[in-house]
């Protein structure tokens, strides 16, 4: 089964970046780095969310009981 993006982790990381950026005495370089990372992650997340296309697979077991995942016909 192919991996799908983990939005939970992605949003957690973004949340953490924003919180760090909101601390008053954060180092300027650090703030910039976090900002850049945040913008990049936001863009990637929005791209993925916008382009996502649901896929439906059928789980099949062969006679030996080994599972495989096939595209669902129709």
């Amino acid at each position, binding site marked *: 089964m192919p991996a799908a993006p*983990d939005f939970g982790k992605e949003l957690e990381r973004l949340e953490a970046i924003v919180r760090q950026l909101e601390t008053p005495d954060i180092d300027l370089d650090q703030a910039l780095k976090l900002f850049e990372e945040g913008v990049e992650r*936001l863009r990637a997340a929005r791209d*993925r*969310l916008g382009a996502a296309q649901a896929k439906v697979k059928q789980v099949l077991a062969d006679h030996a009981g080994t599972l495989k995942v096939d595209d669902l016909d129709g």
Partner: protein
Amino acid sequence: MFGALAPDGAWSVSAVNRRAKAAVEGTLEPMWVEGDMTGLKDFGGNLYFSLRDSQAQIRCVMFRDDARRLPATPTEGMKVYAFGRATIYEKRGEFQLNVAKMMSTEAGGLFRIAFEKARAALAKDGVFDRPRKPLPRYPRWIAVVTSVDGAALRDIMAVAGARWPVAQIAVIDTRVQGDGAVDEVVRALQTITKLTKVDVAIVGRGGGSKEDLQVFNEERVARAVAAVPVPVISAVGHEIDVTLCDLVADHRAATPSAAAEMATPDRDEVMSDLGHLGVRLAQGLAGRVQRMEERVGRTGDRLVSAVERRLEVVSYQLSVASGRLDALSPLGTLARGFAVPRDGTGRVLRRAADFYPGDPFVLRVVDGSVNARVEKN
């Protein structure tokens, strides 16, 4: 037919019984009989009993292949309807009813008995007491245990696909009624354990009659649901009857569509959350840069020229990054003075017809939210 009118033409006992059997079976069509269950005995799965009313009784047998289809064994004294064929048991010359189907005359009948028995067994093992697993907020793989030909799967695909196309759906095909369905559903539920990427499962079917839902009232199915390692939503499409599967599952939905909705976040809402994070990101950095500018302005020291140069670089980077951030619609749109109205559930109100006089709504603007209400006409 002819009788043996003299002793020298006497029939054998076997011949009499054989003829009597043929006569009974040829005369009495298969029929439904109503009576009280009495003297019930189980020999190797074959049920022997009598049905009686206030005046008479009839011996009955229900053979194993038919008896195992009963949801529960009837109890002594129970009023039942039995469907069968009257015959003569040749060996003993006994008149009897060969029963093929049986049900209780009471509402729910044998199904109710089976349900309560299974529920008691599950309760005794604490199956209902285990903590319910919370649903993942952003599922990646949704396992669906149902028939690939059923309406349930189509509904789940439509709803999950529209709301959260990020998630992939893994269908484990199974019959949901009829012979062998219980084994198949149990096996399908066990298969989920091997699909390590799955983070939520839906098990169910579209609506059906009480008999059609029987599979989801089976103790074995209920135990298999409880053993699934990820949260399970039971979606056995029936508003009135609660199945054992519903009672054991981590969550219950009235329909497969409702289950799909429960299992997924709404893409538009997550987009809007991302937009909100973008705003905070920009404000966070802007605040930091502003404090830096204030400090440089205060000291007016030539020594800070290095910092000033650094700040110029930062300002440039910010403008570049902000340009990219603006592309993160709807932030740019909001910054230009547009606002996004949503109702209490977070749904975006797009048209005038979405606003009812007196209704509250929330206005999302560039730097926060404003609670608002539609004026009366």
